[in-house]
């Protein structure tokens, strides 16, 4: 039996759509959206495949009409399956009852199609093959078919109108466009009424499937992650181009033979050679096009890749920071432990050595206190508690901190200048205890870095966009070297003789927890300015 050439298109489309459906299902069988989409594609595949088979069946074979009717049952379920898929995907739970009714309707109509002549009354024998004849109820069948599809499209349009998420909007557009293409396949109903033309529904179905495949690869349609190997794409394309090349050579050969009546092997070879010359540049052009469009990735994919890279960088930074922290902590603990250990080692032989006792007991006590202080600072540093934000008068808070530091300010005769923007800001939402600690660390450093009669300025103002409170603390201290500036917020980093080096790390952590930022500028010998930006919740 020869294959009816008119059946090739429908069979190929049917198989491609089935493959797409199986692929979608394989990604996650448990997802209702995938299951319902597979069911919809299965219906289209069965419709097309059955038709492809029917075109090849001899008139005399009795089962031909049964295939027609089975194919129509599959057609009947197409809008029902798509309605089900759309409502599941869009999570329209209120349509559950409608889905049940649709499926019940589908079963009833399938029985009517199979057992009666009300929807399919016979078969036309067209030039391309047999085709079902519409029965008396066929127009009403079409009406309900169209109504269900209409609702599918309406739901998508409404969802698109109100959807803010860019990725979801993109997916809805693809489905809408795809269904639009599939809608053209409804022209296949026309030959049911006696108009003899070859139904091209399989082409629109194939385009629909190709569009959705593209959307899955490039835009993660249905949240399906697809990694397309560059090699596979190239191989498929090269094969396709080679096929086109071979067919072109064959057509030219046929043309020359049938219409020009020549038989010249040399001429055929020259034609094949000429086409071959453009084969490689054409192949390269196609590869470049694929690189630029499909393989380069959609903005969403690039954004995902960037997000992954950022996570890796964050992880690397975190590990680096842990190492830094560990080495700093080791130093801070091991130094005091050394004197304790040395004293313990020598105590038995030096117990009655007055010099030894007088020297080492204060040293060891000091080192024990140091470890204790370190533990407190570490707890402050590691404290995960989120800020307990409350309405706080920021200016009163700063004045309060400065008054507690009077015992350090006054002896050094440091001039304190306050420049507060009282007009625009007074009350902001912060955790007063945490911010007090944060500012205390900075102010203490400033005071300690300054020689006598230094100058300390604290100012507040509103940012230009009115969203941030900016606090600047400027001192005329010794300044911070350029090479040290990037490290001042690192844990255990300090140039002071006393202290654990956690103060500014704690400050940094507190400001960050408040959603703010902290910056430092400094010049050795001139002084340092800290700039803190805090988001404002309520502004008076």
């Amino acid at each position, binding site marked *: 039996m020869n294959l009816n050439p008119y059946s090739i298109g429908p069979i190929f489309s049917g198989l491609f759509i089935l493959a797409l459906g199986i692929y979608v299902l394989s990604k996650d069988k448990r997802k209702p959206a995938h299951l319902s989409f597979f069911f919809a594609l299965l219906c289209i595949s069965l419709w097309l495949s059955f038709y492809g088979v029917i075109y090849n069946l001899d008139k005399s074979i009795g089962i031909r009409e049964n295939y027609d009717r089975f194919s129509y049952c599959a057609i009947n379920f197409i809008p029902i399956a798509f309605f089900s898929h759309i409502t599941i995907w869009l999570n329209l739970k209120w349509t559950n009852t409608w889905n049940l009714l649709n499926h019940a309707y589908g079963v009833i109509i399938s029985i009517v199609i199979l057992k009666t002549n009300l929807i399919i009354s016979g078969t036309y024998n067209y030039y391309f093959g047999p085709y079902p004849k519409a029965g008396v109820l066929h127009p009403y069948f079409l009406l309900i078919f169209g109504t269900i599809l209409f609702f599918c499209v309406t739901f998508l349009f409404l969802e698109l109108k109100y959807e803010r998420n860019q990725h979801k909007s993109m997916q809805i557009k693809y489905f809408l466009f795809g269904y639009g293409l599939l809608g053209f396949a409804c022209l296949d109903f026309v030959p049911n009424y006696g108009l003899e033309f070859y139904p091209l529904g399989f082409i629109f179905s194939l385009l629909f499937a190709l569009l959705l495949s593209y959307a899955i690869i490039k835009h993660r349609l249905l949240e399906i992650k697809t990694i397309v190997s560059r090699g596979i794409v190239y191989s498929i394309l090269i094969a396709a181009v080679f096929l086109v090349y071979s067919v072109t050579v064959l057509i030219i050969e046929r043309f020359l033979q049938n219409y020009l009546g020549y038989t010249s092997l040399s001429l055929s070879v020259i034609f094949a050679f000429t086409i071959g010359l453009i084969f490689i540049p054409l192949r390269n052009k196609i590869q470049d096009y694929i690189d630029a469009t499909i393989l380069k990735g959609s903005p969403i994919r690039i954004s995902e890749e960037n997000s992954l890279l950022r996570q890796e960088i964050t992880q690397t930074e975190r590990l680096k920071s842990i190492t830094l922290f560990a080495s700093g902590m080791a130093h801070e603990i091991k130094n005091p432990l050394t*004197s304790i250990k040395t004293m313990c080692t020598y105590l038995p032989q030096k117990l009655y050595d007055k010099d030894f006792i007088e020297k080492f007991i204060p040293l060891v006590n000091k080192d024990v206190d140091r470890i204790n202080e370190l533990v407190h600072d570490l707890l402050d540093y590691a404290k995960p508690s989120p800020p307990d934000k409350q309405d706080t008068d920021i200016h009163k808070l700063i004045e309060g901190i400065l008054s507690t530091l009077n015992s350090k300010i006054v002896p050094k005769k440091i001039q304190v200048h306050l420049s507060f923007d009282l007009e625009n800001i007074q009350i902001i939402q912060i955790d007063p205890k945490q911010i007090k600690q944060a500012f205390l660390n900075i102010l203490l450093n400033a005071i300690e870095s300054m020689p006598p009669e230094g100058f300390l300025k604290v100012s507040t103002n509103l940012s230009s966009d009115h969203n941030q409170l900016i606090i600047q603390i400027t001192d005329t201290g010794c300044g911070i070297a350029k090479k040290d500036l990037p490290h001042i917020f690192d844990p255990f980093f300090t140039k002071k003789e006393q202290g654990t080096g956690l103060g500014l790390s704690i400050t940094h952590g507190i400001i960050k927890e408040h959603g703010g930022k902290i910056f430092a500028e400094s010049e050795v010998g001139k002084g340092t300015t800290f700039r803190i930006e805090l988001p404002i919740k309520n502004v008076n």
Partner: protein
Amino acid sequence: MAHKVLIVDDEESIRESLKLILSDHYELILTDGGEQALDVLDHAKDVKVVLLDIKMRKVHGLDVLKEIKAKRPDVKVIMVTGYKSVETAAEASRLGAVGYIVKPFKPEEILKIIKREVK
């Protein structure tokens, strides 16, 4: 003649601990930073061994090591640290340090390493 050992550490408790361990065996010079240490090396040519802390607040021990080896290549420098990492050990070795002591140290450990270097 007692060999002279220069101790460079910005922590008083470490200096006193090292003094306790070494004073019966060696003549000691105690300094609290790189600047002072380089000054001593300029004048005290009989210093043969330096015990140098790596993590100091004002200046990093490895920077001081570089300066010492530039000024006095004959001097043996032993690094003292609370946190030994492969990278720092390798860098110290590359800059010319001859040994490494990790805090808290055992007296016999210090004595052994210095004895080895003064020979």
